[in-house]
């Protein structure tokens, strides 16, 4: 038996495309054009889930994205998705879904026991309990809470699908493709403006898809079809279906999620993105989002089969499903009568309207009565019954005070109940855009008020204009105005076609419909937030306890914090609070609307920026050679640098020890291309460097290089490097790898903002040059085989630069050294980097050349006591702290950071200073980060003097070596201190100076 509740010949589903799907393991059929919700209802499935807190049976409440109840786990395995709204899932063949938040099954859910104890779980109960004994909180109580937490289950595998992002620009963005949005798009599109029209449904037309309204004497849907045809023919109009505008950010930046293949089901491969995340910069925005029907808050209003009146109407008209036979419509307004009429016309056995109003006068009321529909006037539904779905409601006459019932109750059997408490314009995006809201007293809803800085306009029922005629006219007007504001068209507004609107009578506002017992007494529950199980009595409790601000109310009761963000509940909640406080509704105010409008897939926000494309891997021109040589790489900033080059089965330690020895014995080669390089030109270059570095630069001769330290204005070291004077007005600066961008920014900032008159220009040339550093006693011999340069130390001394060729490529060769051994940094245009590297490697064979990586570089420089900024310094270290007073010029009046030296703390004796450390056990390598103390205590806390910044085993020194920042370290040379480790070991150390190898510095000349 399938689709028992499907109506013959009605609806916009495609009956030629039957589809099979499973729900909770059971197979059903539906049609292309169905949502999962409409297909379930067609099959008579009403119970689809369990509520969050009480595990009450829940069904389908709406037909749109505002759905709070019908959340299902969609799909399986790597494609499973929790909390999917059945009302927004388009049916596809093979779809599988299951209920969530229930165990073992949705029909028999063990945790529904919670209902029995509901009285013990009023709002905020957890703040008052679970405190005794305190030690039980995490192991016992929190475990229980967490077991109950959450709704659906996270996928546990990698997502097989791909996602895309798209930046778009338009003159006018229109959100919502109902009559208002379509009219706006027509008016704007005809001006030639670039228009994007986005609607979250699969079809345009908005509420007209569920309606039989007429435009110009024809079915409105014909007007929709014509309008669409016109729009799609306009070159600069883009119509986006299945696209939810999720966020409205500053300067009319709106995000939208387009579901590209979701309605088709899983795809064979991931070449087509599953979803596309749009980032739209619009000149003007028209919001035509429509309105969301407001539920009535009455006793046990949450049983499956109880739904919004407009939802029922949508199921009947748009999906051709009449999900019940005996229907009660409960309303405070006229619009629900349309539902009653349509249900009747669709063949419902019995349709009854329960109208809160004593004397409703609208034309539709009369029409209903004429159609033979029973109407109870001045009545309220005061109870509902039914275990897994509603089977009856009880009604009674409502007192004038809106709070009491003044008659006996009458039971009305029903298998579907529809209800309506009026409409709330969808003002979410308006509010996200900093727009203000006004309270419309006549229509009892918030409507867009003052527009914020980005000046959106609102049209249609989203603007509180509920008549079709007004939707159309506002659509045309706002579309034309928006286009004009964006520079298109004259602002002339197309004429509004004729419509068949009916006058509606006034509403009767009963924010809490009384039940048979006073609120909070007895078992009945008046839900306003169905998803988070928040009931009217919770609002009373919150008010009683002082949580009367709407923001406290929200947080104390969790109302509006579910996946639906309170689309159906918020206004009811604050209206109830207003009643309790005896305040006007706008005085209570709304909570803050925040993006996204409906939840957005993380994968879509990420788009292509994942896996290999998550973040660039910067590599040098020699990268291929490193791969071939079996390098292990280190991440330095975004760069991949060779860390070490293991041979055979060597461990890292073994490889590094070998590299360290071999460099000092023969020659080693390092790829130093990642060092930051900045070309500096201009007459004032030297003067500028005088400001930037601590030492003097005007006396450096062309062709010569010098080491410099850069300080921030706090007087702390933040970068270092060697800079070479190429000509009087031309320098080549090098920086640390990680500091390259920062240093360039630093130079530009000072030159452009503080000293704009200085004649000095900076250009990053980092990647222009590939750099092969060769170092070790045989480096001169190696280089001499490949170069035209005269390498005689007399003509090419230490700290000099020469231009020539190396391995046939044009090169700048710098004789500078970070190892303390003879060294050449060979810079060639990047295109020759690989060639020159290979040539040196080839020629190096007979010189016993070894390739080495950053780790060996670090050991070798530590042997010489050379610092690494960021390792031996941390932004709190001055040059003096490093023992580098020699580099701080006393002759210059000023340089950046200098003044800070004189501050009391910076000038203080006993600051942490860089020293060498030698362990008592020469084979023991201290862990970096270990702390140095004077007095060892049996256990912490212990007063520390500082920490180990660098620590290695040095094969060249034949023991372990370390650098450390130690309080008053420079005066402690020779002292013995201790390093207590987390393992419990305490190592004695002697303070030394920072140079461990070749103290005389004779090796630089080879």
């Amino acid at each position, binding site marked *: 038996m399938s689709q028992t509740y499907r109506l013959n010949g009605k609806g916009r589903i495609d009956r030629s495309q039957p589809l099979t799907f499973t729900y909770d393991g059971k197979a059903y059929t539906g049609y292309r054009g169905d949502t999962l919700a409409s297909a379930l209802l067609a099959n008579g499935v009403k119970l689809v889930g369990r509520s969050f807190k009480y595990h009450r049976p829940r069904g389908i409440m709406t037909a749109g994205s505002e759905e709070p109840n019908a959340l299902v786990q969609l799909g399986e395995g790597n494609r499973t998705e929790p909390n999917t709204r059945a009302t927004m899932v388009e049916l596809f063949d093979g779809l599988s879904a299951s209920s969530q938040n229930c165990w073992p099954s949705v029909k028999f859910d063990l945790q529904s026991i919670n209902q029995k104890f509901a009285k013990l779980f009023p709002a905020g109960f957890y703040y008052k309990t679970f405190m005794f004994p305190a030690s039980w909180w995490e192991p016992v109580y929190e475990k229980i809470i967490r077991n109950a937490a959450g709704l659906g289950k996270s996928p546990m595998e990698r997502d097989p699908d791909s996602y895309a992002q798209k930046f778009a620009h338009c003159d006018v963005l229109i959100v919502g493709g109902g009559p208002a949005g379509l009219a706006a798009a027509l008016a704007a599109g005809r001006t030639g403006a670039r228009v994007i029209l986005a609607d979250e449904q699969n079809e345009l037309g908005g509420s007209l898809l569920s309606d039989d309204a007429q435009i110009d004497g024809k079915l409105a849907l014909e007007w929709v079809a014509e309008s669409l045809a016109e729009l799609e023919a306009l070159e600069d109009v883009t119509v986006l279906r299945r696209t939810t505008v999720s966020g409205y950010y500053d300067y009319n930046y709106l995000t939208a999620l387009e579901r590209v293949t979701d309605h088709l089901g899983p795809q064979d491969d991931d070449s087509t993105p599953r979803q596309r995340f749009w980032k739209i910069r619009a000149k003007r925005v028209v919001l035509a989002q429509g309105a969301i029907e407001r539920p009535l808050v009455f006793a046990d209003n949450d049983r499956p089969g109880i739904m919004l009146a407009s939802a029922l109407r949508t199921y009947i008209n748009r999906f051709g499903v009449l999900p019940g036979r005996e229907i009660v419509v409960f309303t405070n307004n006229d619009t629900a009568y349309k539902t009653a009429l349509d249900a009747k016309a669709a063949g419902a056995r019995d349709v009854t309207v329960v109208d809160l109003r004593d004397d409703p006068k609208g034309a539709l009321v009369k029409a209903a009565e004429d159609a033979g529909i029973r109407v109870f006037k001045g009545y309220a539904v005061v109870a509902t019954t039914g275990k897994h779905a509603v089977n009856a409601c009880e009604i009674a006459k409502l007192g004038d005070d809106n709070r009491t019932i003044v008659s006996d109750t009458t039971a009305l059997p029903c298998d579907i109940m529809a209800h309506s408490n009026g409409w709330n314009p969808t003002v979410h995006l308006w509010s996200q855009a900093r727009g203000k809201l006004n309270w419309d007293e006549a229509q009892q809803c918030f409507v867009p008020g003052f527009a*914020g800085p980005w000046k959106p306009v609102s049209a249609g029922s989203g603007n509180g204009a509920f008549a079709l005629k007004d939707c159309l006219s506002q659509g045309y007007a706002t579309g034309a105005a928006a286009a004009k504001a964006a520079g298109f068209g004259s602002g002339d507004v197309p004429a509004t076609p004729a419509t068949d609107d009916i006058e509606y009578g006034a509403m009767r506002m009963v924010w809490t419909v009384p039940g048979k017992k006073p609120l909070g007494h007895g078992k009945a529950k008046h839900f306003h937030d169905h998803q988070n199980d928040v009931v009217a009595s919770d609002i009373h409790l919150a008010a009683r306890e002082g949580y009367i601000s709407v923001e406290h109310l929200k947080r104390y009761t969790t109302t509006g914090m579910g996946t639906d963000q309170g689309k159906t509940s918020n206004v009811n909640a604050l209206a109830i609070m207003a009643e309790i406080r005896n305040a006007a509704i706008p005085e209570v105010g709304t909570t803050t609307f925040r993006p996204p409008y409906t939840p957005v897939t993380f994968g879509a926000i990420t788009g292509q920026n994942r896996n290999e494309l998550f973040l660039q891997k910067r590599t040098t021109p020699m990268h291929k050679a490193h791969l071939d040589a079996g390098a292990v790489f280190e991440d330095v900033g975004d760069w991949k640098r060779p860390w070490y080059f293991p041979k055979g089965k060597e461990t890292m330690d073994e490889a590094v020890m070998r590299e360290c020895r071999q460099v000092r014995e023969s020659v080693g080669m390092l790829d130093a291309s990642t060092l930051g390089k900045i070309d500096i030109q201009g007459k004032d270059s030297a003067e500028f460097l005088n400001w930037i570095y601590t030492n003097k630069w005007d006396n450096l001769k062309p062709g010569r290089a010098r080491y410099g330290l850069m300080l921030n*204005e706090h007087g702390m070291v933040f970068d270092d490097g060697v800079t070479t004077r190429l000509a009087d007005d031309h320098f080549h600066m090098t920086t640390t790898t990680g500091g390259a961008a920062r240093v360039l920014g630093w130079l*530009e*900032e000072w030159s*452009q903002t503080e000293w*704009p008159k200085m004649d000095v220009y900076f250009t990053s040339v980092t990647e222009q040059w590939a750099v092969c550093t060769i170092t070790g006693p045989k480096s001169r011999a190696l280089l001499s085989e490949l170069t035209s340069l005269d390498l005689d130390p007399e003509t090419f001394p230490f700290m000099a630069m020469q231009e020539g060729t190396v391995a046939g490529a044009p090169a700048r060769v710098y004789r500078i050294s970070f190892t303390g051994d003879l060294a050449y940094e060979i810079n060639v245009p990047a295109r020759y980097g690989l060639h020159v590297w290979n040539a040196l490697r080839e020629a190096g064979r007979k010189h016993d050349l070894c390739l080495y990586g950053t780790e060996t570089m670090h050991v070798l420089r530590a042997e010489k006591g050379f610092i690494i900024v960021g390792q031996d310094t941390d932004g709190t270290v001055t040059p003096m702290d490093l023992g580098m007073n020699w580099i701080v010029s006393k002759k210059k009046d000023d340089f950046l950071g*200098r*003044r*800070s030296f004189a501050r009391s703390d910076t000038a203080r004796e006993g600051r942490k200073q860089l020293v060498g450390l030698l362990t008592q056990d020469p084979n023991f390598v201290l862990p970096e980060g270990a702390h140095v103390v004077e007095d060892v205590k049996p256990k912490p806390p212990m007063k520390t003097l500082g920490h180990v910044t660098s620590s290695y085993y040095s094969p060249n020194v034949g023991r372990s070596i370390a650098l450390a920042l130690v309080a008053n370290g420079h005066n402690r040379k020779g002292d013995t201190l201790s390093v207590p480790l987390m393992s419990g070991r305490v190592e004695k150390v002697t303070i030394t100076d920072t140079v461990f190898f070749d103290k005389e510095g004779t090796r630089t000349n080879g």
Partner: protein
Amino acid sequence: MFLVKCPWCGWREQTEFSYGGEAHIARPTGTDEISDQEWGDYIYSRKNTKGVHAERWVHTQGCGRWFNAVRHTVTDVMWDSYKMGEDAPNPPKDWDGLSSRDELEPSEGK
């Protein structure tokens, strides 16, 4: 994601720029003469204005030039920007922070 107006390249995504903090803070001259207090204020003390704020930006990904701008720090609307060394184009006293100068004085814009 607001827009920033580069005096040369025009309105661009804020992400193309880097923020440089409060504008018009000159580095003190004669730093040896000033007190620790004055020096500290120069490095650390900022107006941090809630409202109309003159600040520095650099068009990092575009032309690379530094400039100044006046922005409302509550709405993030940028009134206008101006080149280094120019006087601030101050918005009217009663500026509500809701519209940029280009919107209010379209002829002057661009």
